[in-house]
């Protein structure tokens, strides 16, 4: 028992300092061993964690980085929606697959390119072949595929092909309002309209952007504008429906338009926004401003007469009427028959400085303030001579955007305070119902002048050049405008800008409706005329008839009488046919 251990005789007992050093070394070895054992255990545990425990979640989440928190791993939000005032989608972003290739994994580029051409209708063989042979590990082949196209590509079964989920901008209303809503590029960056001016907000994807547009009114306006443009073979046109109380644009159309899904295929004339970016000499609609300036600066001047018996000769310029009355005209008659001579004399009576200040107060000398970038700067004579005062009184020699003109006219008709058009619907504290909060405190004409202008505008539709805009049931007022466009050596009588701006209901105007046609041609039905009263006024009347019932605006009580009747004392009636309305 004593010698059980075979090497017992070789065991030496160490004592003293040697024994102590050995024990210390032994302890250290044990400690080191324990440390390494623990480290290996930890590594093994971590491997099990990564491969078994987290690996399952990794596969389930489609390759989300291991250890990443939710905030780090989630995809960015899609671009925010754009909706109309009733919540109808104007623009949204939907998930679509986009096809890419890893060229290093392509074994037979020619065969794969041929297969891709069969699967994707919009690609060419040469382009695909070239892309498949590029250097690198990631090359886009086609973006935003349809489900059917994705299925066809999957059937090819090539390991070199892959899909990446992207968002594509979709415009459910198509070409209804592309100039206002705008469009984006393939990467979702806004390039025009609201898409561009609110790019950062929309890209954040957090809040839906509500516009003031109403797709129903937009459709009505676009329908009537395009119908009139086709009927009179116009090259283009623009239209707007403005809520005078709030400044909200219910409809805004530029024609021709385009499909915002494919802006690259549209021609430049279709992409051009005639309503806000184009500036035009709008002609007689400017008589609203010169007449208001006269009435506001010289009270009680309705009965004042202006000599329209002969064309006005100013230096080398001759100002004539389209259909000369060849007699003295009162202010209501000048406005009703749209006499250029009378308007020029009214401008002269107001004075250059006063007229310029008045136009400036109306916002006609500076670009319109709107929430989109496509806003045109007006063209103002520089230097402004006395002849410019005369021509600007009837809308020549000064070019503004149609939206500017409508906003300025609405400011006068709406009660005399400046109306600022807007496209973004206000919420919360900005809600305007029922108070007209969008009206600014800037007064441009007195309430009396505003009332007189309402009567005059009604007179134009009741007895003057705008008869075709009248709508049974509603008291419509408005003003026609026909302007020859600048051409080489002067103005072209063949190229007209014909327009009509209407307001209703005239006793308490709520809506302004404007339609302009660029380059219309007379037809048999219009007796060859292409003036605003023949081509634009009927279209405005149709818009008012349709939108009045749609918005639930009650018809006028016939027993109340026509508000223009009080001006009858100033309107001279010739024979049985009355005053000849011209433009």
């Amino acid at each position, binding site marked *: 028992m004593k010698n059980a251990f075979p090497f017992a005789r070789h065991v030496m007992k160490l004592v003293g300092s040697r024994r102590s050093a050995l024990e210390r070394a032994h302890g250290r070895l044990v400690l080191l061993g324990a440390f390494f054992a623990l480290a290996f255990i930890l590594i093994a545990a971590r491997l099990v964690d990564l491969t078994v425990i987290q690996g399952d979640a990794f596969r389930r*989440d489609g390759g989300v980085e291991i250890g990443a928190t939710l905030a780090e791993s989630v995809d960015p939000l*899609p671009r925010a*929606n754009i909706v109309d005032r009733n919540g109808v989608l104007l623009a949204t972003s939907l998930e679509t697959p986009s096809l890419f290739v890893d060229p290093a994994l392509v074994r037979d580029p020619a065969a794969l390119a041929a297969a891709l051409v069969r699967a994707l209708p919009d690609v060419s063989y040469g382009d695909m072949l070239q892309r498949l042979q590029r250097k690198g590990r990631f090359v886009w082949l086609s973006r935003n595929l349809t489900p059917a196209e994705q299925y066809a590509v999957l059937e090819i079964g090539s390991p070199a092909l892959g899909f990446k989920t992207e968002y594509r901008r*979709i415009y459910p209303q198509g070409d209804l309002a592309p100039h206002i809503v705008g469009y984006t590029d393939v990467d979702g960056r806004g390039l025009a309209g609201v898409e561009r001016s609110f790019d950062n907000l929309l890209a954040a994807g957090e809040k839906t952007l509500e516009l003031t547009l109403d797709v129903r009114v937009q*459709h*009505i306006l676009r329908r009537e504008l395009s119908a009139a443009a086709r009927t009179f073979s116009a090259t283009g046109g623009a239209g707007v429906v403005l809520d005078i109380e709030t400044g909200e644009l219910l409809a805004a159309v530029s024609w021709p338009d385009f499909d915002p899904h494919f802006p690259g295929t549209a021609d430049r004339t279709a992409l051009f926004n005639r309503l806000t970016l184009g500036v035009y000499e709008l002609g007689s609609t400017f008589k609203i401003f010169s007449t208001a300036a006269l009435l506001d600066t010289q009270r009680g001047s309705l009965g004042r007469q202006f000599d329209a018996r002969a064309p006005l000769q100013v230096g080398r310029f001759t100002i004539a009427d389209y259909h000369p009355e060849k007699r003295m005209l009162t202010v209501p008659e000048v406005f009703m028959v749209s006499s250029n001579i009378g308007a020029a004399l009214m401008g002269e009576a107001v004075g250059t400085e006063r007229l310029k200040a008045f136009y400036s107060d109306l916002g006609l000398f500076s670009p319109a303030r709107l929430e989109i970038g496509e806003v045109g700067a007006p063209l103002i004579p520089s230097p402004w001579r006395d002849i410019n005062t005369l021509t600007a009184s009837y809308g020549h020699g000064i070019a503004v955007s149609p939206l500017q003109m409508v906003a300025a006219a609405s400011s006068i008709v709406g009660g005399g305070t400046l109306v600022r058009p807007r496209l973004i619907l206000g919420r919360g504290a900005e809600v305007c119902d029922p108070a007209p909060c969008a009206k600014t405190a800037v007064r441009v004409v007195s309430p009396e002048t505003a009332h007189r202008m309402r009567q005059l505008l009604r007179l134009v539709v009741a007895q003057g050049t705008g008869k075709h805009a009248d709508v*049974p049931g509603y008291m419509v007022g408005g003003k026609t405008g026909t302007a020859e466009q600048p051409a080489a050596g002067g103005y072209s009588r063949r190229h007209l800008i014909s327009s009509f701006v209407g307001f209703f209901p005239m006793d308490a105007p709520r809506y302004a409706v404007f339609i302009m046609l660029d380059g219309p041609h007379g037809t048999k039905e219009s007796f060859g005329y292409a003036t605003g009263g023949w081509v634009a006024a009927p279209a405005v009347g149709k818009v008012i*008839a349709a939108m009045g019932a749609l918005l639930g605006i009650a*018809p006028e*009580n016939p027993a109340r009488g026509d508000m223009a009747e009080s001006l009858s004392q100033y309107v001279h009636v010739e024979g049985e046919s009355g005053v000849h309305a011209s433009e």
Partner: protein
Amino acid sequence: MKLLRLSVFLGVAAAVLSGVALFWTSQAVRQDEVRLRALYYAALRETQSIRVLQAEWDYLNRPARLETLAWESLAMSAPTAGYVAAGVAALPDPFVPMLPTRKPAFVYVAKQASAVVPVSAPTAAETIAPERDFQDLLDHLGRTEGAP
């Protein structure tokens, strides 16, 4: 010495326990992250589905399309000002008695039934009414069954 070994043992045990607790906590958090991510992606898929449905709904309800369908399928056109009532007072009174505009040419006086004719209980075969068309039904309306 014994005290030292005990403290080392307790320290190691505490470290191991802390490690296990930390591992347990991290795994619990990770599992919650996984569940949260799954819920997030599920919500995202639902949101995307809703976006697709909304886009489809508004695409199908374009005013131009509805106008065409209403005209072609229902012969309905846009209303005019005449369809809009100025107020409640302008609405027609639904309770006005509907009187004839003129006096009828003659007044029909129904004959009183002379007597009640008792009938025997019908058999099962007799209760099954023979098939009649609508015109036949109108012709026999008001005539007593069995009367000439």
